[in-house]
């Protein structure tokens, strides 16, 4: 990798409700690039973002963001670090009692003492960047799914963060909305020099915009590299995921007891 690592995960182990989600994940996320984290549903992709954001603490291992060891930070320092982060949630997570304008203005009002006319200019600029300046008076309940995510994106870049994390930005989007989001993620990364972490299981869209990608499965990183390197990866599991094959190293059947016994056929031809 050419760029230095902005985020480093080293031997991260994390369990929840008795289930081990990560079993020694080690990963470097380069500064100023788009990194895609992919993997089948339920492999802990969103959990990884929450570990990076300090909303969860690992059982062991190190999570470092911009040189700060996140799990070891005091509450105050963690909140200060988060001011440099933006996160786009899968649902958008807009505040339902605030208009589009007020949602985008929220972080500015909380973290800055800017005069109202300057806040207005910044909000309109951010909304213009996502193509929704004209929707500023709408309430979140009046927005489509794609618009909600674009407003959430405008809100997450309101404070000009250094890092932005996207949690399944393409899930449930129609092709046009997906195309808009792909363009926005690419443009924001290049124009603002952001470090972007993109969690998704939409392989073509993710690989089309990322500079670097990794695939998580069974609590580990099973493959990483540039999109081209991943496409040539020798692992059957990586190829099964990238090509969407229904059966392979990740079996089609959930582990089950003997079928003959389950169907009550003893000594039969099952």
């Amino acid at each position, binding site marked *: 990798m050419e760029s230095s690592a902005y985020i480093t995960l080293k031997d991260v182990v994390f369990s929840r409700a008795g289930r081990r989600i990560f079993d020694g994940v080690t990963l470097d996320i380069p500064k100023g690039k788009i990194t895609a984290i992919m993997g089948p549903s339920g492999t802990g992709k969103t959990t990884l973002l929450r570990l990076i*954001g300090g*909303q969860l603490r690992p059982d062991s291992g190190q999570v470092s963001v911009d040189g700060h060891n996140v799990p070891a930070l005091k*509450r105050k320092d963690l*909140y*200060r*670090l*988060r*001011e440099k*982060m*933006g*996160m786009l*949630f*899968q*649902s958008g*997570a*807009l*505040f*339902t009692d605030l208009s589009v304008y007020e949602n985008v203005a*929220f*972080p500015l009002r*909380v*973290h800055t003492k800017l005069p109202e006319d300057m806040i207005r200019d910044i909000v309109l600029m951010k909304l213009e960047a996502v193509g929704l300046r004209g929707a500023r008076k709408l309430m979140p309940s009046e927005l489509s799914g794609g618009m909600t995510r674009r407003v*959430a994106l405008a809100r997450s870049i309101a404070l000009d963060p250094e890092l932005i994390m996207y949690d399944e930005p393409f899930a449930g989007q129609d092709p046009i909305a997906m195309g808009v989001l792909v363009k926005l993620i690419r443009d924001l990364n290049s124009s603002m020099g952001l470090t972007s972490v993109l969690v998704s299981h939409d392989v073509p869209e993710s690989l089309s915009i990322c500079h670097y990608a990794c695939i998580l499965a069974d609590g580990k990183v099973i493959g990483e590299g540039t999109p081209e390197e991943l496409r040539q990866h020798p692992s059957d599991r990586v190829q099964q995921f990238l090509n969407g094959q229904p059966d392979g190293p990740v079996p089609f059947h959930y582990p089950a007891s003997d079928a003959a016994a389950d169907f009550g056929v003893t000594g039969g031809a099952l």
Partner: protein
Amino acid sequence: MMDRIAALGRGGLDVISSFGRSGRFLVGVLAGIPRPATGFPLLLRQLYFVGVLSLAIVVVSGLFIGMVLGLQGYTILSDYGSEAAIGQMIALTLVRELGPVVTALLFAGRAGSALTAEIGLMKATEQLSSMEMMGVDPLRRVIAPRLWAGFIAMPVLAIIFSVVGIWGGMLVGVDWLGVFEGAFWGNMQSSVDFVDDVLNGVIKSVVFGFVCAWIAVYQGYDCVPTSAGISSATTKTVVYSSLAVLGLDFVLTAVMFGDF
């Protein structure tokens, strides 16, 4: 047999851990001193939702309970020829007991359940998480104003309930059943003590307000972020608040009015 004992033990541990979590939650909420410039508008807004919007149900309930007290009191006291004491009976009943207790039960049903559902939905739709990721502590921004609003609004609502109830009792006792107005107010004035009755009633409502608001915001914050989880948390808010209010009322009454 062992399974049942184990289940009982698990249930006990769950209850204890829930108490522990709610205590830590409360410390977290109270620890942060909000900035007046941002905290006061949020508090005012919540006072409106929690207090002002509860006024209708409190006033109507207070009126009818006062009127029922007037009717029942007159029926019983007139048997002894002492219907003039109806004002005293209504005032003491309302100020000492029914004002704080019924207002708290109404508060739990109207404002408490709404607080739990609102916070639970904010959790389910990741609004609380997004706030955290923006570097804003939801305990201070979302929870604290709601807790303080409940704490402040409850005593005011209880006082309004008692005042309206006394007025309702007067409507029935004096205007309808013909009790002498001078005796109604005079007996009330001579028998109701400001510190022993009024202030103790207000203290009760302060305690109930704090407990109801704490239960409501905690249940919302701690709920399982699903439809079923929010529904269950809302039910728990009403049930736990009602039980806590009735239980605490007995304890407070014993301490304040028990002549041991």
